């Protein structure tokens, strides 16, 4: 037997496949990973402290910059937290608009995430380009409603910033026609592809128990076989009004994560279809006219969470009765989902690290804050 020596190498922080400035200290024995330590903090920008010198509303645009793929979902979590703290009612129509935006966000996030994952596997831009094109359509819709593609800043306490423009609904309906075709096509391209199967099947397995003990959430947890979705487990907003399924994986490897995400896009489309049906009957305007934006919540604390495309995003706010939050804490799904990376990578090859990392679907803006 040949005696080999362990070697420590750095992947990142400046590396094209680390999805931002992220560093992994990898110990390898030949090609096999014996240990991996994730190191984060390179994109730290004092988000939580800045939030404590801002007023409550001023934090809304900052939450966009957490997970910049899903600014709408971030807005939702933050708006829910403040509304819970102050006790603001949200009109029905506003709730529908919110859920509509968040589900569109889920589709665009998964379209992008899968594209990047395939890109990490070496298929370069093929699936990414297809996914980005669908994402662009959704961003166009966001732009027409909120004024911006990425930093939407669309949610306000008690509703959303403005109602949908007249050309929104026709375009959304067109998009829903395209969506199944896009998802089916994506499945045809990926699902049975032998190269993809070799790169993803039984790679980066995260067993159920380990996932739970790391408090992993979102598609990652579901791919490991835990049917936990906050939209079902603790329905917030109006999620109890929609029929949709929760996909789970059987093995918990990279392949399952791909499958779960593909199915979630279908489920999100189902929700959007139900929204389109129910929206015309919804009561109230896009915002509660009595809701003040310059809120001064009573002293107390609150935790509100939502199921973003990446997992459980929670905001913990402590108010001392002033105009600014006394403490502002973000429970970021990307950050917590990233922590078991070492466990997932151990025993696999160096080339798998990048794929496993891609399958977690992280955004460094949220990991480091």
């Amino acid at each position, binding site marked *: 037997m040949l005696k080999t020596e362990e070697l420590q190498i750095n992947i990142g922080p400046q590396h094209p496949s680390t999805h931002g400035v992220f560093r992994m200290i990898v110990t390898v024995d030949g090609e096999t990973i014996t240990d991996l330590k994730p190191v984060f903090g390179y994109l730290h920008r004092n988000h939580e402290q800045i939030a404590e010198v801002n007023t409550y509303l001023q934090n809304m645009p900052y939450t966009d910059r957490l997970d910049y793929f899903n600014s709408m979902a971030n807005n939702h979590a933050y708006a829910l937290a403040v509304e819970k703290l102050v006790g603001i009612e949200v009109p029905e129509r506003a709730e529908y608009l919110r859920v509509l935006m968040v589900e569109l966000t889920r589709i665009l996030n998964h379209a992008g995430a899968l594209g990047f994952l395939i890109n990490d596997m070496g298929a370069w831009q093929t699936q990414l380009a297809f996914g980005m094109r669908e994402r662009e359509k959704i961003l166009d819709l966001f732009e027409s409603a909120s004024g911006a593609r990425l930093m939407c800043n669309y949610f306000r306490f008690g509703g959303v910033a403005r109602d949908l423009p007249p050309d929104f609904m026709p*375009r959304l309906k067109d*998009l829903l026609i395209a969506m199944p075709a896009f998802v089916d096509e994506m499945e045809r391209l990926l699902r049975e592809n032998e190269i993809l199967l070799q790169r993803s099947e039984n790679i980066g397995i995260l067993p159920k128990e380990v996932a739970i003990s790391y408090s992993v959430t979102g598609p990652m947890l579901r791919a490991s076989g835990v049917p936990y979705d906050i939209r*079902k487990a603790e329905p917030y907003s109006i999620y109890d009004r929609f029929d949709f399924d929760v996909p789970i994986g059987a093995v918990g490897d990279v392949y*399952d994560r791909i499958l779960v995400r593909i199915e979630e896009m279908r489920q999100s489309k189902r929700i959007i279809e139900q929204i389109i049906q129910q929206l015309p009957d919804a009561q109230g305007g896009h915002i509660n006219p009595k809701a003040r934006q310059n809120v001064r919540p009573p002293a107390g604390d609150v935790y509100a969470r939502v199921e973003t495309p990446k997992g459980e995003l929670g905001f913990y706010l402590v108010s001392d009765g002033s105009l600014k939050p006394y403490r502002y804490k973000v429970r970021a799904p990307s950050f917590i989902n990233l922590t078991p990376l070492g466990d997932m990578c151990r025993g696999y090859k160096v080339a798998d690290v990048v794929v496993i990392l891609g399958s977690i679907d992280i955004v460094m803006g949220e990991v480091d804050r």
Partner: protein
Amino acid sequence: MDIQRGNIIVMDRRRGKLRAGQGLLQGLKVVWDHWIGSFRKNENFSQIHGTFTIEYPDERMKLPQAYRNMPVLIYDDETGHELCTACYQCARACPPEVIHITQAKDPNTGKMVPASLEFIIEYDACMSCGLCAEACPFDAIKMDHFFELATDDRMGLLQRKADLNRPISYYTTIAPDLWDEVKEGAMKKLQGSIKRRPGVIGIAGHLSDKIAARRRELEAEAAAAPPAPADAAPAAPAGKLSPEEKAAKLAAMRAAKAGGAAPAAEAPAPAPELSPADAKAAKLAAIKAANAAKKAAEASAAEAPAAPVDEKAAKLAAIRAANAAKAAAAEAPAAPVDEKAAKLAAIRAANAAKAAAAEAPAAPVDEKAAKLAAIRAANAAKKKSE
């Protein structure tokens, strides 16, 4: 495990029964379809094939009305008046605190006017959140659609009022529906603030000929109108005395003569507003302020005999004021080269004059008489300006 309104579905890992290589071919077919599709144009959102490229910058996407890039200030095409009333709501709403406002003052009375003197937005730090536009109760600040802001000059991104002003007619081209929603209220509020803006205050400083003409007209009017210590020396051309300056001087003299120490203090008030470029004018203003202060002091001293008890105190105050003014005046010409110093001296002189004026009326026992005189002087000045 059961869930409400839905099922848990375990993903099927192997659906198709494909032979080796067939999966790859299936995928290649997808890519092939896209390649074939790329020869025609993608028409709308329902299609997933076809090119949807827009050849920027030759072609441009139509931006939605709600699109927001950077905030701009809007003004009325007709009157040239800016909608902004310097209420500071936007500055308070702005998360990165990049809006800086100075409110305009009425040079006549020293009171605040609902208009901004300067309005600065640091475009380089603005996060385009749009909260300023939402907070503005006068619909004076709106989000522009212009996005080609790339520059190698960072300080150029510090946008002043002159750079930020856009006419309503421009805003209606980019967001007609949004403007229609707020138009009525905004214009009504604008009429209200126009009434409270004297002279050219609040009128956009440049741009269309019409507004320039209107500005000139208003300026001429102000110049023609006698006394009103009002337009005293607003950035006078160096060297010659402008009609306004003359009027100001006259007013200052007259006010001083009338015994009202108060107007004398006001006359030099506009001095700090001088454009820093006009060092000479600043000097002039400083001297004028000193003179006015002297006169005011003299006048109050002259009046003092009416109340012989406090004669001494009044005289003392007058002398002190005169000295202070003199000192200030002496300082002013000492630094004619340095613009800043000149301005500073002018401000100092004005302050000294003010202080003197504040001190002077305290002296005479015959307070009532003095007050009366002051009011009378003010009235006379007002009448003349009307």
